[in-house]
């Protein structure tokens, strides 16, 4: 689609900075969530070193929380691992969608890119693009860099000061991410063609959580895939083509492939 050539492309370092500053409201929520994880890590008798290494090299908040919660509740390391991994399955679909951003890049950039992919900076990149901004790899990495620093520091802070921090529930902070995801979902809205796939996804996963004896993360992944398959089968592909290409095509200018 020629329309992409008209988009204003940014230099990698500007795109990186833009990703870093756009993520700040979400980084605030991540800091709270990280401190909450630190409290849990303290209950699991984890040291600052263990917490910092986990934050840096796992870097998947909800799965860290679930896995350590299982460990605290007396489950063995293997059961805790399975729970954490099940929750992370959705990331497979997320990094799968980044093929345009990662194609043709050196291996070290691919490794950094996929490791720094989280719900927050990934969704924010699509939201920025839905608003017509020519952002891609470096925007994602900029947001991810901010998040991994904030997350790791907040979790280590939480485990160090476990005795004196308030419970996140007491001040409504546990709702921060739900509110953020609602706002991000609204900014992903491309038009009425999104309505039915979104409702099918929400309905499927909601019903599965209520009535099927499976982990919520499986219900989430199944619901998301069902909605996407529904869209592919029922919506006329030709009418979708333009939106599809505008969403998945990377800005053509080669500057976006430069080094930071």
């Amino acid at each position, binding site marked *: 689609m020629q329309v992409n050539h008209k988009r204003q492309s940014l230099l990698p370092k500007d795109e990186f900075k833009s990703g870093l500053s756009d993520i700040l409201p979400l980084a605030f929520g991540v800091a709270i969530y990280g401190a909450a994880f630190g409290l849990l890590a303290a209950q699991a008798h984890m040291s600052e070193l263990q917490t910092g290494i986990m934050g840096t*090299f*796992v870097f998947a908040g909800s799965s860290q929380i679930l896995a*350590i919660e299982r460990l605290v509740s007396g489950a063995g390391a293997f059961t805790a691992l399975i729970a954490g991994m099940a929750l992370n399955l959705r990331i497979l679909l997320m990094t799968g969608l980044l093929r345009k951003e990662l194609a043709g890049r050196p291996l070290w950039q691919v490794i950094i890119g996929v490791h720094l992919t989280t719900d927050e900076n990934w969704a924010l990149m699509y939201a920025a693009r839905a608003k017509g901004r020519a952002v891609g790899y470096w925007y994602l990495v900029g947001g991810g860099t901010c998040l991994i620093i904030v997350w790791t520091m907040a979790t280590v802070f939480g485990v160090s000061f476990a005795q004196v921090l308030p419970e996140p529930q007491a001040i409504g902070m546990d709702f921060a991410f739900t509110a953020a995801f609602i706002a991000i*979902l609204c900014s992903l809205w491309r038009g009425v063609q999104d309505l039915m796939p979104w409702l099918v996804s929400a309905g499927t996963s909601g019903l599965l959580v209520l009535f099927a004896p499976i982990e*919520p993360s499986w219900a989430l*992944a199944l619901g*998301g895939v069902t909605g996407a398959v529904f869209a592919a089968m029922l919506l006329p592909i030709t009418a979708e083509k333009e939106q599809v290409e505008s969403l*998945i095509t990377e800005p053509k200018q080669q500057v976006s492939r430069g080094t930071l």
Partner: protein
Amino acid sequence: MTDQWILICALAVGTFSIRFGGYLLGSKLPTTGAWATAFAVLPGCLLSALLAVIIVQGTKEQWIAASICLVVAILSRNLLLTMTIGIITVWLLRSYVQF
């Protein structure tokens, strides 16, 4: 080796394998046709599904706050405003309303 270290190392390796596996899978998928349509709509579908899972397992004050957040997000398209109002709503409901 303690349970904590085993879990940390295994979860780090496993999570990275999932992230890198998505990259390997994604680069083999076609860019046009039904697959492309499905992939274009997938981010919104996954977020809808995630929210449905959260809401279904949530409490009454979270349902009320989520409804308010939805209206605020549609009207303002502002991330920080939506988060702030959501947090304050949950906090106020927990402090002053008995469910």
